[in-house]
Protein backbone atom coordinates (compact mmCIF):
# COMPACT_ATOMS: atom_id res chain seq x y z
CA UNK A 1 0.00 0.00 0.00
CA UNK A 2 1.02 3.61 -0.36
CA UNK A 3 2.92 5.67 2.22
CA UNK A 4 5.09 2.91 3.63
CA UNK A 5 8.50 4.54 3.44
CA UNK A 6 7.80 7.90 5.02
CA UNK A 7 6.68 9.07 8.43
CA UNK A 8 3.75 10.93 9.87
CA UNK A 9 4.90 14.49 10.37
CA UNK A 10 4.70 15.85 13.90
CA UNK A 11 1.60 17.99 14.40
CA UNK A 12 2.63 21.65 14.19
CA UNK A 13 2.56 23.61 17.43
CA UNK A 14 -0.91 24.87 18.31
CA UNK A 15 -2.82 22.85 15.72
CA UNK A 16 -4.04 20.26 18.19
CA UNK A 17 -5.54 21.68 21.42
CA UNK A 18 -3.45 22.23 24.50
CA UNK A 19 -3.88 19.06 26.63
CA UNK A 20 -4.31 21.21 29.73
CA UNK A 21 -6.20 24.41 28.95
CA UNK A 22 -7.08 25.76 32.40
CA UNK A 23 -10.24 27.64 31.34
CA UNK A 24 -11.68 24.25 30.30
CA UNK A 25 -11.75 22.84 33.84
CA UNK A 26 -11.94 19.14 33.04
CA UNK A 27 -8.58 19.28 31.26
CA UNK A 28 -6.72 20.14 34.45
CA UNK A 29 -6.63 16.61 35.83
CA UNK A 30 -7.24 14.71 32.61
CA UNK A 31 -4.87 16.18 30.04
CA UNK A 32 -1.56 14.30 29.86
CA UNK A 33 1.30 16.42 31.24
CA UNK A 34 4.02 14.58 29.33
CA UNK A 35 4.38 15.13 25.60
CA UNK A 36 3.19 12.29 23.43
CA UNK A 37 6.18 10.08 22.68
CA UNK A 38 7.12 9.77 19.02
CA UNK A 39 7.27 6.05 18.34
CA UNK A 40 7.31 3.92 15.23
CA UNK A 41 4.99 0.93 15.04
CA UNK A 42 3.99 -0.97 11.92
CA UNK A 43 0.40 -1.03 13.22
CA UNK A 44 0.14 2.76 12.86
CA UNK A 45 0.02 2.51 9.08
CA UNK A 46 -2.01 -0.66 8.82
CA UNK A 47 -5.50 -0.24 7.38
CA UNK A 48 -7.81 1.24 10.00
CA UNK A 49 -10.72 -0.66 11.47
CA UNK A 50 -13.18 -1.47 8.69
CA UNK A 51 -16.74 -1.46 9.87
CA UNK A 52 -18.63 -4.54 8.66
CA UNK A 53 -20.99 -3.22 6.02
CA UNK A 54 -23.96 -4.90 7.68
CA UNK A 55 -23.55 -2.42 10.54
CA UNK A 56 -23.87 0.67 8.32
CA UNK A 57 -27.45 1.17 7.17
CA UNK A 58 -28.36 3.78 4.54
CA UNK A 59 -30.81 5.42 6.96
CA UNK A 60 -27.99 5.94 9.50
CA UNK A 61 -26.99 8.99 7.44
CA UNK A 62 -30.37 10.69 7.96
CA UNK A 63 -30.73 11.77 11.59
CA UNK A 64 -34.16 13.23 10.80
CA UNK A 65 -35.57 9.83 9.83
CA UNK A 66 -35.09 7.93 13.09
CA UNK A 67 -38.42 8.63 14.81
CA UNK A 68 -42.07 8.00 13.99
CA UNK A 69 -42.50 11.64 13.04
CA UNK A 70 -40.55 14.65 11.88
CA UNK A 71 -38.17 16.28 14.36
CA UNK A 72 -38.46 19.93 15.32
CA UNK A 73 -35.90 22.41 14.11
CA UNK A 74 -34.05 23.54 11.04
CA UNK A 75 -33.29 20.65 8.70
CA UNK A 76 -29.80 20.80 7.21
CA UNK A 77 -27.55 18.74 4.98
CA UNK A 78 -23.87 18.57 5.85
CA UNK A 79 -21.38 17.48 3.21
CA UNK A 80 -17.65 17.59 2.73
CA UNK A 81 -14.56 15.80 1.65
CA UNK A 82 -12.10 13.94 3.85
CA UNK A 83 -8.51 13.99 2.61
CA UNK A 84 -5.15 13.46 4.25
CA UNK A 85 -2.42 16.11 4.58
CA UNK A 86 -1.08 15.05 1.20
CA UNK A 87 -4.41 15.73 -0.48
CA UNK A 88 -5.22 12.04 -0.99
CA UNK A 89 -8.87 11.16 -0.47
CA UNK A 90 -9.75 9.12 2.61
CA UNK A 91 -11.97 6.53 0.97
CA UNK A 92 -14.72 4.17 2.19
CA UNK A 93 -13.97 5.23 5.74
CA UNK A 94 -16.33 5.33 8.72
CA UNK A 95 -17.56 8.63 10.15
CA UNK A 96 -19.76 8.81 13.25
CA UNK A 97 -21.63 11.97 14.25
CA UNK A 98 -23.56 12.91 17.39
CA UNK A 99 -25.21 16.09 18.62
CA UNK A 100 -27.94 17.66 20.73
CA UNK A 101 -31.38 18.51 19.35
CA UNK A 102 -32.76 21.86 18.18
CA UNK A 103 -33.44 22.84 21.81
CA UNK A 104 -29.91 22.09 23.02
CA UNK A 105 -30.64 18.75 24.72
CA UNK A 106 -28.79 15.49 24.14
CA UNK A 107 -30.64 12.19 24.08
CA UNK A 108 -28.48 10.93 26.96
CA UNK A 109 -29.33 9.94 30.53
CA UNK A 110 -26.69 12.27 31.97
CA UNK A 111 -27.89 15.41 30.17
CA UNK A 112 -30.00 17.29 32.73
CA UNK A 113 -30.41 20.55 30.77
CA UNK A 114 -33.98 21.80 31.23
CA UNK A 115 -34.62 21.92 27.49
CA UNK A 116 -37.08 19.45 25.97
CA UNK A 117 -36.19 16.15 24.38
CA UNK A 118 -37.61 15.59 20.90
CA UNK A 119 -39.29 12.18 20.58
CA UNK A 120 -38.37 12.20 16.90
CA UNK A 121 -34.69 13.08 17.22
CA UNK A 122 -31.90 11.13 18.88
CA UNK A 123 -28.95 12.93 17.38
CA UNK A 124 -26.54 10.30 16.16
CA UNK A 125 -25.61 8.69 12.87
CA UNK A 126 -22.85 7.01 10.90
CA UNK A 127 -21.85 6.64 7.25
CA UNK A 128 -18.90 6.00 4.98
CA UNK A 129 -16.92 8.32 2.76
CA UNK A 130 -17.14 7.46 -0.94
CA UNK A 131 -14.30 6.70 -3.37
CA UNK A 132 -13.45 10.43 -3.50
CA UNK A 133 -13.52 10.90 0.26
CA UNK A 134 -16.88 12.65 0.09
CA UNK A 135 -19.60 12.24 2.74
CA UNK A 136 -23.07 13.65 3.29
CA UNK A 137 -25.64 13.39 6.05
CA UNK A 138 -28.93 15.03 6.95
CA UNK A 139 -29.75 16.36 10.38
CA UNK A 140 -31.33 19.14 12.44
CA UNK A 141 -29.25 22.19 13.29
CA UNK A 142 -28.20 21.76 16.94
CA UNK A 143 -28.59 24.57 19.46
CA UNK A 144 -26.28 26.07 22.06
CA UNK A 145 -26.58 24.70 25.61
CA UNK A 146 -25.23 25.56 29.06
CA UNK A 147 -22.52 23.36 30.56
CA UNK A 148 -21.59 24.78 33.97
CA UNK A 149 -17.88 25.24 33.32
CA UNK A 150 -18.00 28.88 34.42
CA UNK A 151 -20.70 31.56 34.89
CA UNK A 152 -22.82 31.88 31.75
CA UNK A 153 -20.98 29.04 30.09
CA UNK A 154 -22.77 28.08 26.86
CA UNK A 155 -21.33 25.76 24.25
CA UNK A 156 -21.60 27.09 20.71
CA UNK A 157 -23.77 24.85 18.51
CA UNK A 158 -21.69 21.94 17.26
CA UNK A 159 -21.79 18.45 15.81
CA UNK A 160 -19.33 15.84 17.10
CA UNK A 161 -17.41 13.92 14.41
CA UNK A 162 -15.49 10.66 14.86
CA UNK A 163 -13.33 9.54 11.94
CA UNK A 164 -11.42 6.30 11.51
CA UNK A 165 -9.38 7.31 8.46
CA UNK A 166 -7.72 4.82 6.13
CA UNK A 167 -4.85 3.89 8.46
CA UNK A 168 -4.89 3.47 12.23
CA UNK A 169 -2.88 6.60 13.07
CA UNK A 170 -5.39 8.81 11.23
CA UNK A 171 -8.08 8.37 13.90
CA UNK A 172 -9.63 11.72 14.82
CA UNK A 173 -12.49 12.99 16.96
CA UNK A 174 -13.47 16.60 16.53
CA UNK A 175 -16.40 19.03 16.54
CA UNK A 176 -17.91 20.97 13.66
CA UNK A 177 -19.11 24.48 14.49
CA UNK A 178 -21.44 26.81 12.60
CA UNK A 179 -20.32 30.06 10.97
CA UNK A 180 -21.00 33.41 12.61
CA UNK A 181 -21.63 32.10 16.11
CA UNK A 182 -20.84 34.76 18.77
CA UNK A 183 -20.10 31.98 21.29
CA UNK A 184 -16.93 30.84 19.49
CA UNK A 185 -14.69 33.46 21.09
CA UNK A 186 -16.07 32.64 24.55
CA UNK A 187 -15.82 28.86 24.38
CA UNK A 188 -12.89 27.28 26.28
CA UNK A 189 -13.16 24.04 24.31
CA UNK A 190 -12.94 25.79 20.92
CA UNK A 191 -10.19 28.04 22.27
CA UNK A 192 -8.10 25.17 23.64
CA UNK A 193 -6.78 25.23 20.05
CA UNK A 194 -4.26 28.08 20.04
CA UNK A 195 -3.62 28.26 16.28
CA UNK A 196 -6.14 30.55 14.57
CA UNK A 197 -6.18 28.65 11.27
CA UNK A 198 -6.64 25.35 13.10
CA UNK A 199 -9.54 26.79 15.12
CA UNK A 200 -11.23 28.07 11.99
CA UNK A 201 -10.76 24.65 10.36
CA UNK A 202 -13.57 23.46 12.64
CA UNK A 203 -16.09 26.03 11.40
CA UNK A 204 -18.34 24.77 8.61
CA UNK A 205 -19.34 26.99 5.71
CA UNK A 206 -22.88 27.79 4.75
CA UNK A 207 -23.55 26.68 1.17
CA UNK A 208 -26.52 27.77 -0.87
CA UNK A 209 -25.39 25.29 -3.55
CA UNK A 210 -25.74 22.39 -1.11
CA UNK A 211 -29.14 23.62 0.05
CA UNK A 212 -32.07 21.63 -1.30
CA UNK A 213 -35.05 23.64 -2.54
CA UNK A 214 -37.74 24.00 0.07
CA UNK A 215 -36.33 21.09 2.11
CA UNK A 216 -33.10 22.06 3.82
CA UNK A 217 -30.15 24.40 4.00
CA UNK A 218 -26.66 23.15 3.27
CA UNK A 219 -23.31 23.31 5.04
CA UNK A 220 -19.91 22.10 3.90
CA UNK A 221 -17.22 20.82 6.24
CA UNK A 222 -13.99 19.46 4.77
CA UNK A 223 -11.67 17.44 6.98
CA UNK A 224 -7.93 16.84 6.72
CA UNK A 225 -6.43 13.82 8.49
CA UNK A 226 -2.75 13.14 9.04
CA UNK A 227 -0.70 12.13 6.03
CA UNK A 228 2.73 10.70 5.40
CA UNK A 229 3.89 11.11 1.84
CA UNK A 230 4.70 14.81 2.22
CA UNK A 231 7.08 14.22 5.09
CA UNK A 232 10.74 14.27 4.07
CA UNK A 233 12.55 11.05 4.84
CA UNK A 234 14.68 11.07 7.93
CA UNK A 235 12.61 13.46 9.99
Amino acid sequence: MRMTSTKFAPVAQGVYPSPVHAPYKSTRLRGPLQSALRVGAPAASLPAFQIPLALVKPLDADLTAQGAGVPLGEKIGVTGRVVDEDGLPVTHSLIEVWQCNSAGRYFHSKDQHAAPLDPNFFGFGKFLTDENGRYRFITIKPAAYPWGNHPNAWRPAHIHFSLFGNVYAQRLVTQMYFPGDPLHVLDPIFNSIYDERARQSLVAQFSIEESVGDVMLGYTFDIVLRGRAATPLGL
Partner: protein
Amino acid sequence: MTGLTSSQTIGPFPHEGWRWAFDATQAMRPSGAALTVEGTIYDGAGQPIDDAVLEAWAPDSAARERDQPMPAFRRVASGARGEFRFDLTAPVVRGNGEPALYVTVFARGLVTHQFTAVVLEDDAGLAHSAILQQVPEARRATLIARKKALDRYEWNVWMQGGQETVFFDYT
Protein backbone atom coordinates in the same frame (compact mmCIF):
# COMPACT_ATOMS: atom_id res chain seq x y z
CA MET B 1 0.53 20.14 2.33
CA THR B 2 -3.02 20.94 3.40
CA GLY B 3 -3.95 22.20 6.85
CA LEU B 4 -4.62 19.45 9.33
CA THR B 5 -8.06 19.47 10.97
CA SER B 6 -7.81 19.95 14.72
CA SER B 7 -9.13 17.67 17.43
CA GLN B 8 -11.79 18.17 20.12
CA THR B 9 -13.03 16.24 23.13
CA ILE B 10 -15.77 13.61 22.90
CA GLY B 11 -17.45 15.47 25.78
CA PRO B 12 -19.72 13.68 28.26
CA PHE B 13 -22.35 12.47 25.79
CA PRO B 14 -20.85 10.14 23.15
CA HIS B 15 -22.48 6.98 24.48
CA GLU B 16 -25.70 6.83 22.46
CA GLY B 17 -23.96 7.57 19.18
CA TRP B 18 -21.22 5.07 19.94
CA ARG B 19 -23.55 2.41 21.32
CA TRP B 20 -23.60 0.31 18.15
CA ALA B 21 -19.92 -0.52 18.76
CA PHE B 22 -20.37 -1.09 22.50
CA ASP B 23 -23.10 -3.56 21.54
CA ALA B 24 -20.99 -5.24 18.86
CA THR B 25 -18.15 -5.54 21.39
CA GLN B 26 -20.51 -7.24 23.83
CA ALA B 27 -21.64 -9.61 21.10
CA MET B 28 -18.11 -10.81 20.29
CA ARG B 29 -17.76 -14.52 20.97
CA PRO B 30 -14.25 -15.48 19.88
CA SER B 31 -14.03 -19.20 19.29
CA GLY B 32 -10.31 -19.57 19.93
CA ALA B 33 -8.20 -18.96 23.01
CA ALA B 34 -9.36 -15.96 25.00
CA LEU B 35 -7.47 -13.27 26.80
CA THR B 36 -8.80 -10.58 29.13
CA VAL B 37 -7.15 -7.24 29.78
CA GLU B 38 -8.92 -5.17 32.43
CA GLY B 39 -8.19 -2.14 34.55
CA THR B 40 -9.19 1.30 35.69
CA ILE B 41 -8.64 4.73 34.17
CA TYR B 42 -7.55 7.45 36.64
CA ASP B 43 -7.19 11.22 36.51
CA GLY B 44 -4.34 13.27 37.97
CA ALA B 45 -5.89 13.25 41.46
CA GLY B 46 -6.13 9.46 41.42
CA GLN B 47 -9.89 9.59 40.92
CA PRO B 48 -11.45 7.09 38.53
CA ILE B 49 -12.74 8.53 35.24
CA ASP B 50 -16.29 7.27 34.79
CA ASP B 51 -17.01 8.71 31.36
CA ALA B 52 -14.03 7.62 29.27
CA VAL B 53 -14.24 5.46 26.17
CA LEU B 54 -11.45 3.08 25.24
CA GLU B 55 -10.98 1.40 21.90
CA ALA B 56 -8.76 -1.64 21.47
CA TRP B 57 -7.46 -2.82 18.16
CA ALA B 58 -5.72 -6.13 17.61
CA PRO B 59 -5.02 -6.28 13.86
CA ASP B 60 -3.60 -9.81 14.16
CA SER B 61 -6.99 -11.09 15.32
CA ALA B 62 -8.83 -9.96 12.19
CA ALA B 63 -8.61 -13.27 10.38
CA ARG B 64 -9.62 -15.35 13.37
CA GLU B 65 -12.55 -13.08 14.17
CA ARG B 66 -13.78 -12.94 10.59
CA ASP B 67 -17.15 -14.44 11.52
CA GLN B 68 -17.65 -12.09 14.48
CA PRO B 69 -19.68 -8.86 14.51
CA MET B 70 -16.63 -6.58 14.55
CA PRO B 71 -13.32 -8.33 13.82
CA ALA B 72 -10.18 -7.10 15.61
CA PHE B 73 -11.89 -4.11 17.20
CA ARG B 74 -13.41 -3.41 20.63
CA ARG B 75 -14.98 -0.30 22.11
CA VAL B 76 -15.90 -0.05 25.80
CA ALA B 77 -17.08 2.77 28.06
CA SER B 78 -15.50 3.04 31.50
CA GLY B 79 -17.89 2.25 34.34
CA ALA B 80 -18.87 4.17 37.48
CA ARG B 81 -15.59 3.18 39.16
CA GLY B 82 -13.51 3.91 36.07
CA GLU B 83 -13.29 0.22 35.24
CA PHE B 84 -13.01 -1.26 31.76
CA ARG B 85 -12.45 -4.73 30.33
CA PHE B 86 -11.41 -6.10 26.96
CA ASP B 87 -12.14 -9.73 26.10
CA LEU B 88 -9.81 -10.64 23.27
CA THR B 89 -8.75 -13.49 21.07
CA ALA B 90 -5.31 -14.53 22.28
CA PRO B 91 -2.49 -13.69 19.85
CA VAL B 92 -1.38 -16.58 17.64
CA VAL B 93 2.25 -15.71 18.12
CA ARG B 94 3.11 -15.05 21.73
CA GLY B 95 6.52 -14.19 22.99
CA ASN B 96 7.61 -11.63 20.39
CA GLY B 97 7.10 -8.55 22.57
CA GLU B 98 4.52 -7.08 20.22
CA PRO B 99 1.53 -5.31 21.77
CA ALA B 100 -1.41 -7.56 22.53
CA LEU B 101 -3.58 -4.60 21.71
CA TYR B 102 -3.35 -1.01 20.56
CA VAL B 103 -5.54 1.25 22.66
CA THR B 104 -7.07 4.66 21.93
CA VAL B 105 -8.35 6.67 24.90
CA PHE B 106 -11.13 9.26 24.75
CA ALA B 107 -12.78 11.28 27.53
CA ARG B 108 -14.46 14.50 28.50
CA GLY B 109 -11.64 16.89 29.32
CA LEU B 110 -9.31 15.03 26.98
CA VAL B 111 -9.06 17.37 24.01
CA THR B 112 -7.16 14.95 21.77
CA HIS B 113 -7.53 11.17 21.76
CA GLN B 114 -4.47 9.37 23.11
CA PHE B 115 -2.82 6.35 21.52
CA THR B 116 -1.13 3.76 23.70
CA ALA B 117 -0.48 0.02 23.63
CA VAL B 118 -0.39 -2.95 25.96
CA VAL B 119 2.17 -5.73 26.15
CA LEU B 120 1.80 -8.74 28.42
CA GLU B 121 4.01 -9.19 31.46
CA ASP B 122 4.79 -12.83 30.79
CA ASP B 123 5.63 -12.28 27.13
CA ALA B 124 8.99 -14.00 26.68
CA GLY B 125 10.02 -11.40 24.11
CA LEU B 126 9.53 -8.38 26.35
CA ALA B 127 13.26 -7.62 26.45
CA HIS B 128 13.24 -7.31 22.66
CA SER B 129 9.89 -5.52 22.29
CA ALA B 130 10.27 -3.07 19.43
CA ILE B 131 7.78 -0.67 20.97
CA LEU B 132 9.11 -0.83 24.55
CA GLN B 133 12.63 -0.15 23.34
CA GLN B 134 11.45 3.24 22.10
CA VAL B 135 10.13 4.15 25.57
CA PRO B 136 12.36 5.47 28.39
CA GLU B 137 13.00 2.58 30.73
CA ALA B 138 11.48 4.28 33.76
CA ARG B 139 8.11 4.58 31.97
CA ARG B 140 7.90 1.17 30.30
CA ALA B 141 5.92 -0.37 33.15
CA THR B 142 2.93 1.78 32.20
CA LEU B 143 2.51 -0.29 29.03
CA ILE B 144 2.89 -3.72 30.65
CA ALA B 145 -0.23 -5.60 31.74
CA ARG B 146 0.29 -7.58 34.94
CA LYS B 147 -0.77 -11.20 35.03
CA LYS B 148 -3.56 -11.86 37.53
CA ALA B 149 -4.58 -15.34 36.50
CA LEU B 150 -4.31 -17.60 33.48
CA ASP B 151 -4.98 -15.36 30.46
CA ARG B 152 -6.20 -12.56 32.71
CA TYR B 153 -4.21 -9.33 32.94
CA GLU B 154 -4.51 -5.99 34.71
CA TRP B 155 -3.55 -2.78 32.98
CA ASN B 156 -4.46 0.68 34.31
CA VAL B 157 -4.46 4.03 32.57
CA TRP B 158 -3.15 7.10 34.40
CA MET B 159 -3.77 10.39 32.61
CA GLN B 160 -1.29 12.29 34.82
CA GLY B 161 1.05 11.80 37.77
CA GLY B 162 4.14 9.77 38.59
CA GLN B 163 2.82 6.75 36.73
CA GLU B 164 1.32 8.68 33.81
CA THR B 165 0.71 6.25 30.97
CA VAL B 166 2.97 6.66 27.96
CA PHE B 167 0.92 8.02 25.09
CA PHE B 168 2.17 7.88 21.53
CA ASP B 169 2.45 10.11 18.55
CA TYR B 170 3.06 7.59 15.80
CA THR B 171 5.78 8.36 13.29
